[in-house]
Structure formats: structure tokens, C-alpha cells
């Protein structure tokens, strides 16, 4: 497995973490009384980062089109 393939796996896992964390933080925002502002900021930032990572993943695949996965 080349660095390209491992990076792709990493981006997929990171994107899942971003959306999962966004869900966690927004749930905490709506259910907890403390740290509400921080949870809202972390949740929305994380969701935005998840979308950015998806876009980056597409860019990365196009940029390294000629590099082998092995």
C-alpha cells in the first residue's frame, strides 16, 4: 500500500470523525447547560471541516491520479 492509499484511508476516517464529532458537540449543545457556546463552535467547525475534507479528498485524487495505490 502506497502513501497515496493510506492517505485516502486517513481522509475517510478523519471525515467520519469530523461528522461524528460535530454530531456529538451539537448534541451536547442542545442537552447540556455548561460549555454551550464552545460546543456550538466546535460542532459547526467540525461539520465544516468534514465538508472541506471531502472536497480535499476529491482534489487529492485528481492531483495524484497517476500515482499507484501499491
Amino acid at each position, binding site marked *: *500500500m*502506497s*502513501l*497515496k492509499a*493510506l*492517505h485516502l*484511508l*486517513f481522509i475517510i*476516517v*478523519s471525515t467520519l*470523525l469530523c461528522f*461524528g*464529532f460535530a454530531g*456529538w458537540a451539537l448534541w451536547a449543545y442542545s442537552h*447540556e447547560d*455548561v*460549555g454551550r*457556546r*464552545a460546543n456550538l463552535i*466546535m460542532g459547526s467547525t*467540525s461539520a465544516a*471541516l468534514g465538508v472541506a*475534507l471531502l472536497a*480535499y479528498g476529491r482534489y*487529492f485524487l485528481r*492531483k*495524484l491520479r497517476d*500515482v499507484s495505490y*501499491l
Partner: protein
Amino acid sequence: MDIPYTVQPRRDTGLYNAKLGIWLFLASEVMLFGALFSSYILLRVGADPGEWPQRLLNVPIGTVNTLVLITSSVTVVLGWAALKQKNFAKYRKLQTITVLCALTFVGIKSYEYADKFKHYQVITKDGKVYDGHLVKQDNEVVVLEGGLIDASKGKAHGVMVAQREAELHGGHHPEVEIKRSEIQKIGNYGPGHNTYMSIYFTLTGLHALHVIGGALVIAYILWPGAGMYKTDPERYINRVEVSGLFWHFVDLVWIFLFPVLYLL
């Protein structure tokens, strides 16, 4: 005598030596971290209901560290891609950012560790539990910036959450003075505090050592070892790829550590 397969892949494995070597090494690393993750899961599942501490760690700080490591993975792979396109200057810039990200991560982790070592819990002889940051201690008194916690809950969870909120809003807790003669037990939130802190320090400490090791290798290839790019560029690019594979493994470990330790 030349060592074969330093650049070209072997026909049977399809890999050059260093790539085969790093994957074997990473397989052993998966077993090491896998064993520690398994220990964590077994300890947590085996704990009595409501006894396992939660939300003891600062989530915003952990989030920043996660962003730092994700950024470093992007720069490490784009640096490798730049090198493949024979753009050494761009590679150098991107890898420098990678090393800076590693230093930032270790710096933030050190801050978190220092905070835990300054955070104390004091149990008095009459059963009261105080929790807070140590302001001063001598032979007569211990002064904490914190307060009394509800001992019936058995955990400092509520205090931690309240403290986090106070920190976020720039607030401060009052100082509490406790006489030494009244203290039954005193200890900080170091590895000896409880099982959770013990496994937290073991997992994150081992991970931080990997970050330091990876950063040293990347920095060596980037600066003192860069001469090879002139004499044997393909082999140099392979070295960069191998260091990048290790770096991605280290980052992947953190991607699993962060939710397990900070969120769940």
C-alpha cells in the same frame, strides 16, 4: 556491492525494501496499540456502572490537537507529491509545516499534562472531598483553587465541567485553604490517580513518543539527509514516502484516541 531493491520493487513482493520494512514495523505497532486499546476497553467494560470517569479532559484542546495532526498529514503527503513533481522547494516548505505541527502537538500535550499534574484532589478526615488546582502547599496548609465536591457522586465530574465552563468564560474559582492535620489523602491527577488516568497517560504518552520520533525522522530527511536528493533522487523520494507512511499511522492512532479518551 550495491544493496538491491532500494529503488525498484522486488518482483515477488511488488515493494522496495524500505516499504516492506515499514509495513512490517507498522504491523508490530498495530499489535502494540491494539493491545493497549483492548486493555482500555476491558477496563472500562469491567468498571462498575457510573464509576468510570468521563469528560475529565479538555475537549477544545484535544480538538485543536486533532486539527493540528490532520493538517500535518495533508502537508506530509502534498510534500511527497511535490517531490515527485521535482519541486524540492515546495516539498521543503510543506515538510517544515509538518515538523512545526508536530512541535505544536507536543507543546499542547505538554500543557495538558502539566495541568493534570497541578490538579489535586484532597480527602479530609471527615470525608469531605476538595478538588482544584494547587496554589501552594507547605507543612501547615494546602491551598487549592477549586472547591468542595459532592462526595456522594464519588467523582469530580461536575467540578471538571464547571471548571471548564469557568475557564471558557475567563472566570476563576475561589481559593480554599485546607489544614495539613485535617488531610487524610492528597494526590494529583497523575497516572497514579485512578485507572482512567493511568491508561490515559500510557496511551497518550506512547503516542507522543511516536510523534516525537516521527518528527525527528522527517526533520532528518528534510535537512541533514537532503543531500541524497542530488545523488539518488528516487531513493530519497522513497525515504520521504516511508516516513510519510509512519506519520500517517501515528495520526490514525490519534484519530481513534481522541474520541475514545475525550468524548466517550
